[in-house]
């Protein structure tokens, strides 16, 4: 084994756990375990002590640090805005987002239609506001499903090891050989696009990825004394996993959840753009871009540009939040 750093339990694992297993997965940019930027924290050395055994725990001072981080504030305000739109979109929207006036198609931005109208005469601003709804319902649900299943799977894999660890580990490796978008694409095409399919497929892929992260965290925890103590007390395996280990690995799980949420939005938007995600006539940014970008050549840029900016602002917001949380919790 060329890896000559037996710094943690991972190196001693019989499973092929070399540096490459921890290597970034190109298939999924969000899965790349990149070093945190450490620029979003309030100040250098601001976060809790590095030698703290239970570094994975979430504490109140973490929240205080987060609220002092400009990146977190910007991300949170943007996300909050889109959540408000998702809930009250129909009320805020100046016009009907689904029924348009066919006489006013492809009109540029004006005082009456701030973002112009699309090829069916629908108000683009209204569609952008209401378009937040479906993606902001599906993405968190899929991510939550993936996080819950992935955490349970990762705990079992890391704590018990054995056959399930090897089988799921191999399965994850095979899945990771494909970009998440392609895996999701393949399955959504197979089963047919529907809201439930999107949630299940993305949740399933994420569960495998999250299980891997949780497993690594658990492998490090299980070598610590408090686990040995719990085993001596004759606690049950389930109790050790969920009552002893889980609270100590919540940090990485929370980071994983926020990072994945950003990637869920990325994936759903992309699938919608390809025609296999949220289906028209439901207002959706990705689907709207898919139906309007062919008109770009004719100069009707507003129909495409505004939904594009909406997606960009949402994913950037979620990732600013994810990065701030990572900088505060993992450092």
């Amino acid at each position, binding site marked *: *084994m*060329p890896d*000559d750093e037996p710094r943690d339990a991972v190196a001693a694992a019989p499973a*092929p756990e070399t*540096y*490459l297993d921890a*290597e*970034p*997965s*190109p*298939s999924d*940019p*969000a899965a*790349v375990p*990149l*070093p945190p*930027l450490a*620029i979003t924290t309030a100040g250098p050395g601001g976060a809790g002590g590095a030698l703290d055994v239970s570094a994975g725990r979430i504490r109140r001072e973490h929240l205080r640090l987060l609220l002092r981080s400009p990146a977190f504030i910007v991300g949170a305000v943007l996300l909050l805005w889109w959540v408000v739109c998702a809930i009250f979109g129909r009320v805020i929207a100046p016009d009907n987002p689904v029924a348009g006036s066919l006489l006013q198609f492809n009109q540029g931005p004006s005082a009456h239609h701030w973002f112009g109208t699309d090829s069916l005469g629908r108000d683009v601003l209204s569609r952008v506001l209401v378009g937040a709804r479906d993606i902001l319902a599906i993405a968190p649900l899929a991510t939550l499903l993936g996080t819950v299943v992935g955490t349970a799977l990762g705990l079992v894999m890391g704590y018990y090891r054995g056959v399930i660890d090897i089988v799921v580990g*191999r*399965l994850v*490796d*095979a*899945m990771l*050989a*494909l*970009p998440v*978008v*392609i895996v999701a*694409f*393949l*399955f959504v*095409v*197979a*089963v*047919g696009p529907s809201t439930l399919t999107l949630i299940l497929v993305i949740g399933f892929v994420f569960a495998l990825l999250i299980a891997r992260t949780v497993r690594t965290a658990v492998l490090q925890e299980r070598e610590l004394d408090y686990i040995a103590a719990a085993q001596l007390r004759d606690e049950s395996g389930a109790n050790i996993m969920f009552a002893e280990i889980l609270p100590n690995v919540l940090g990485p799980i929370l980071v994983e959840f926020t990072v994945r949420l950003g990637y869920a939005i*990325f994936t759903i*938007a*992309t699938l919608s*753009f*390809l*025609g*296999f995600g949220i289906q028209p006539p439901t207002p959706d940014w*990705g689907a709207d*871009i898919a139906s309007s*970008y062919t008109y*770009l*050549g004719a100069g009707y*840029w507003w129909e*495409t*540009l505004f939904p*594009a*900016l909406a*997606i*960009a602002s949402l*994913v*950037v917001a*979620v*990732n*600013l939040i994810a*990065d701030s949380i990572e900088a505060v919790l993992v450092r």
Partner: protein
Amino acid sequence: MGGQVTLYLLKRLGLALLTLILLSLIIFLAGQVLPGDPGRAILGPFAAKSAVSSLDHTLGVDRPVLEQYWTWITGIVRGDLGTSYQYRAPVSSFLFPAIGRSLKLALVAFVIVVPLSIVGGVVAALNRGRALDRVISVTGLSLSTVPEFVSGVVLIVVFAIGLKALPVTASAPAGSSIPTEIRYLILPAIPLVLILFGYIARMARAGTIEALDSDYARTATLKGLPRSVVIRRHVLRNSLLPTITVIATQTGYLIGGLVVVETLFNYPGIGRLIFTAATDKDFPMLEAGVLAIGVVYLLATLVADVLYTVLNPRIRLQRAE
């Protein structure tokens, strides 16, 4: 120690093969779940039932799943990727030219992104904590999270329609010279560049910072070497090692990101091939295309592994001992 390295690489190769077999199973099973009857899909809704079932029989889709998988996988090993339902022609005659075109696009993206992101990451590290570092890091991070089709349409609006500086499609007219072809590929390559920039730059930044903080860099500074020499000779050599690995592994991602970019820019590469195969329910084409992406990814990880093993000074030292 050289023998151990070889052994390790052989083990990696074996694992890659195992992963590939698993992957082919997953892909094939996903293809089997696909609703609808291939014969019906090809002949249309008005064809006679007997015609549909006889076509199903010719295609072999009425046989047990495992038998079909075996026929498929042994065919691939022999170089027979199957016959496209849509075009009634060998899949390979579409797949390989498409991969070639995609590689061309990927190459343009790499040529732009690799120097750009390494310089970006190193500059950010050298200005750690200052405004320039923040700008590079936050911009890189934000851009890498925006879906390719989003940055793609914004780029089209600005450069192709607003400034009229670059063509809207990716395919140059037939018979164009190489510089013209490249000019057509620049705009489609940029969304890929934007995604990759953040990751590679971040890796380069982290590696450089680690090297800057190391004892050998401090020793070099203390013995009076000029800063530029310390950076060039001691810092960069060590900091770029993880970056090289990331670049190699990102090749796999790049091929995947092509599905969207090629669809958006109407470029006939592997990405659009998969997209069209999916819309047409052309399973043999779809399965072969997705498998090809998996193979490219596994090759890229292997190359990354070999590069890391060969370039890692610690391993070289071990060999010399």
